[in-house]
């Protein structure tokens, strides 16, 4: 996979994007401040930033779940006005429906929202791909946290969307499971060629997964820096730490976040 130089026609493009919340007390709160973004087709971009800086807000606007207050936000050249079938969302908690079997959970996107797609084994292939092949008939409470998260990813992939938006998908997992999920996500991404935007609190995860790491400021969230990660793929957890660029980028990100007064 040659490093994407797709700047000609970004798949996701934001210019001077702002989001102001009106809080319960009636005050207005600027959560996202003049964010500019350009994410090319097939890129895997990670976003880090202090807690409460507006990362989730940014992702929700791209997902069409939150409206933006000002600026431009386009998906494949068209302004975003609501959820799109081209976008799959992976939530922080696996967010599975406990009353449905794992297979039904993964098949949910094919059953709702009109334009029903014939399943034709797609769900089973996805489960197989993420090592959940035997668990399709089980219920979410019978799965470990990591397995639930994998099922959540399968569900986001069910409609074969071009874009995967992930909000701290592995935040609740233990370090070991998390590393395994990182490897798995890299593999899925390399196989599918999808565009992925992933929010994380972990600097190492951000560098390991990202073609680029976008560092955001404390609230109101602005883009502090957009750092390219020139480490070849496929990356492995052992080799990446040895790569000279790794330590450099990690230091740079940590410095930026420290200056913002928050470290994770």
């Amino acid at each position, binding site marked *: 996979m040659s490093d994407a130089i797709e700047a000609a026609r970004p798949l996701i493009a934001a210019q001077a994007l702002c989001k102001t919340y009106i809080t319960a007390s009636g005050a207005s709160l600027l959560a996202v401040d003049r964010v500019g973004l350009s994410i090319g087709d097939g890129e895997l971009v990670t976003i880090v930033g202090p807690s409460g800086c507006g990362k989730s807000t940014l992702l929700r606007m791209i997902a069409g779940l939150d409206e933006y207050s000002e600026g431009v936000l386009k998906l494949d050249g068209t302004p975003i006005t*609501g959820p799109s079938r081209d976008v799959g969302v992976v939530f922080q908690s696996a967010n599975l*429906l406990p*009353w449905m079997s794992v297979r039904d959970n993964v098949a949910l996107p094919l059953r709702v929202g009109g334009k029903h797609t014939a399943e034709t084994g797609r769900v089973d292939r996805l489960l197989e791909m993420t090592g959940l092949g035997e668990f399709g008939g089980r219920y979410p*409470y019978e799965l470990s*946290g990591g397995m639930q998260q994998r099922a959540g990813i399968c569900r986001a992939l069910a409609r074969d969307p071009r874009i995967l938006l992930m909000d701290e998908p592995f935040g609740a997992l233990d370090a070991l499971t998390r590393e395994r999920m990182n490897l798995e996500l890299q593999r899925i991404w390399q196989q599918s060629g999808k565009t992925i935007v992933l929010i994380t609190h972990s600097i190492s995860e951000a560098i390991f997964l990202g073609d680029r790491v976008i560092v955001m400021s404390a609230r109101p969230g602005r883009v502090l820096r957009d750092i390219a990660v020139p480490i070849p793929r496929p990356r492995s957890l052992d080799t990446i730490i040895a790569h000279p660029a790794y330590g450099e980028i990690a230091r740079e990100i940590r410095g930026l976040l420290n200056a913002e007064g928050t470290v994770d």
Partner: protein
Amino acid sequence: MSARPHSGPNGSLIAGLGTLVLLAAWFAAVRFLHVPSYILPAPEAVVRALWSGLAVNPASSLGYYLPLWSTFSNAAVGFLLGCGLGLLLGSLMAEFITVEKLVMPYAFALQSLPKVAIAPLIVIWFGFGDGSKVAISALLAFFPILINSFTGLRSVEPEKLDLMRSLSASRLETYWLVKLPHAAPFIFAGLDMAVVYALLGAIVAEFLGAQQGMGVVITQAQAVTDVAGVFAALVILGVVGVVLHSTVRRIEHRVVHWGHRGKK
């Protein structure tokens, strides 16, 4: 979990012992303390009354079967009617703010009114026949379902609603696949109350004057100070209540299967 009290063979042993002690105390009170039989009839007298009501041709007007059927069938129709309307209105209130704003003040006012107090009015409207029994049962069953379904439907986690929104699911799909299953435990808790209330409603209607039913059996026994007969009828109603209650619980365990086997 293994040390949970009131469950397992130990629990039923304790319950059985308790019943024995209670019966012995009852027996002793009548035998040795000479409590008069118009206050507390001897256990044998109650058993005799029970037997004379049970060991008859089911079609005989002397037995419990006809009155019990009359009370039960009317309570059942009232239960279904009340629960159906309660769920319908609860759903409309949860889905449409306008309906909520319109109905909520009345619902709360009626909720805090002791509803059996309306029973005489209903008898005026519906007469002394089955209509009144059904109507009062329905009225009493209606409110717990209304309140519980409304509360349950409104308490869905926002993340699950975001999921459905991100899939462009229709309102009906979201209601059917997410809100209603989420509300199921609430609704069953309501059904558990409603099933007993419906029985209560039918009995109250019968107290106010009816041709047949367990309420009539009780008032007739009371008219001739047949306290043993009253006790026997209460035993029958108690058994029916327990059976209905445990039936609802059994159905709930089957339907809300995800709520009982550990949570995630």
